């Protein structure tokens, strides 16, 4: 019989890089605090909705090689994102739907079949202290999550308060047409970046006309890409300004870096283009060796695509919390300048 106690989970194996993440630490970038948060926000939102959580509840982000977890209490979970071959006590379990895990059972992972990052949501959300308004782990600054660090063997995880009737969530699933397919070659759509004009006239064509490979020097901060060189017009000097997730910044070697969740808040390299929001969850699923083609897009079209995509998700898998607003208004979160 499923009770409503918070989940308690023992970490037996940590996996390659398993961190607590939510939708990010907004409101403190002007103090130099990175946003961090889940690399793939779509999979995070879906995982949360499947177990009856608000979208911004904390989840575990699993990277390529998942952890092994022992559940000390009956728990409702959902696994989304990359297919890292999840199994309970050795039996394969489906993704993109909510599952019941019984007390004493082991959840483990095997070969990565598609994508790079999987998300594990627990009913009640993963419990961790709120640091500057978020539970996200930014390990470079040792902020958030469990002591600012990825999971390690021996860690114990708890969920937050589990709402009654959580078992009614079991078997809830994301309709198949909405499930993303992850390939080793993707097309990411881009809009022009703030410093596009410092590059030679041929640079945008170079960017969209050739493919780039995700290099091994890639992590949650950003992906170093290898491909055709993007040449600047002249030896201009650049003054640091704000960065965003999906921005393609180009150091003097001409090889772009795709900035991701753990990026620094500001950067001194010119940004030639920015990947559109609706495509970022696909960028999040890339691993070293995967290939990217960039395709031009307008900002207006990017908004149309994002809103249509979200509307479809909301229709098929509505938010579990009437508070549709993800993040409280800015002026309630921190003192002003």
């Amino acid at each position, binding site marked *: 019989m499923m009770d409503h106690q918070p989940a308690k989970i023992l970490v037996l194996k940590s996996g390659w890089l398993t961190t607590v993440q939510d939708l990010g630490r907004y*409101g403190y970038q002007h*103090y130099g605090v990175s946003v961090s948060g889940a690399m793939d926000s779509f999979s995070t939102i879906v995982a949360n909705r499947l177990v009856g959580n608000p979208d911004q509840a904390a989840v575990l982000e699993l990277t390529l090689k998942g952890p092994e977890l022992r559940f000390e209490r009956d728990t409702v979970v959902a696994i989304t994102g990359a297919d890292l071959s999840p199994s309970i006590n050795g039996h394969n379990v489906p993704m993109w739907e909510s599952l019941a895990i019984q007390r004493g059972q082991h959840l483990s992972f095997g070969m990565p079949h598609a994508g790079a990052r999987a998300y594990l949501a627990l009913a009640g959300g993963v419990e961790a202290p709120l640091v500057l308004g978020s539970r996200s782990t930014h390990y470079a600054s040792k902020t958030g999550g469990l002591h600012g660090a990825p999971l390690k063997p021996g860690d114990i995880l708890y969920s937050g308060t589990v709402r009654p009737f959580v078992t009614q969530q079991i078997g809830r699933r994301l309709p198949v047409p909405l499930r993303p397919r992850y390939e080793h070659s993707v097309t990411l759509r881009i809009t022009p970046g703030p*410093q596009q004009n410092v590059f030679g006239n041929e640079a945008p064509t170079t960017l969209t006309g050739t493919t780039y490979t995700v290099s091994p020097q890639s992590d949650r901060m950003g992906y170093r890409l290898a491909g055709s060189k993007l040449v600047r017009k002249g030896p201009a000097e650049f*003054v640091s300004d704000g960065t965003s997730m999906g921005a393609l910044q180009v150091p003097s070697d001409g090889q772009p870096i795709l900035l991701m969740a753990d990026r620094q808040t500001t950067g001194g390299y010119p940004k030639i283009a*920015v990947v559109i929001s609706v495509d970022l969850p696909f960028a999040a699923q890339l691993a070293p060796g995967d290939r990217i083609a960039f395709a031009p897009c307008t900002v*207006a079209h990017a908004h149309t695509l994002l809103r249509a995509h979200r509307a479809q998700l909301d229709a098929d898998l509505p938010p579990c919390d009437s508070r549709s607003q993800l993040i409280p208004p800015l002026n309630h979160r921190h003192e002003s300048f």
Partner: protein
Amino acid sequence: MSPPPHVRRRTRTSPETFRLLSLGDSAVTIEFGNAINPESNARVIAFAQMVSEQGWNGILDIVPSYRSVTLHFDPLQWDAAALTKKLKTLPWEHSPQADPQGLVHEIPVLYGGEWGPDLEEVATFAGLQVAEVIALHTAMPYRVYMLGFSPGFPYLGLVPEQLAIPRRATPRTMVPAGSVGIADRQTGIYPTATPGGWQLIGRTPIPLYRTASHTPFLLKPGDLVRFTPIERDEFDRLSHLNRHENA
């Protein structure tokens, strides 16, 4: 004597003095001026403050840098066109003309030795005695142009030309918390232990980032920082005091 009218106008924030730069579908950068100077940065901070005061729903972050402000917004609630339109309705004519409303912070620094391993190198670069470098570095207050790099890291400037030593060719894999460094015309303080490439000249015992505190960050953009040299015993006393306060 008051400056001529055209000079005064240039220090005021107005819709005519900024450039909008697209940063994707969920952020926009508003750029003021081309150079790093206190006037451009004052406009930046006044603008950031003005937008912050509006309390607009769905504006997720307002990030001032040397000469621009990046606004991050929820793309389901805003787009750049709507935001631009809204920005034009702001009370520009009432915005603070310039500086400085920021606080002045006195930051004690133990210069040289293991606390500032690059001080000698900076002196050689500048062709000065170590004591002269310290005197020059502490001679005037620095403006907090922006924070970035790591939580609470201030970019302070401008450092006297003579001390403007470039970054180290190979960054250190770990710079201790409190380290004071120089990189070109900038000086800064590492609030937490991180990798870093700035030339380290000293260390402060004053914490810049206290996670557990209700006000975690000591400095904000637009503040002024004045470094004062201290001796080892004072450094130890203040270090002990701050550890005690944090406990």
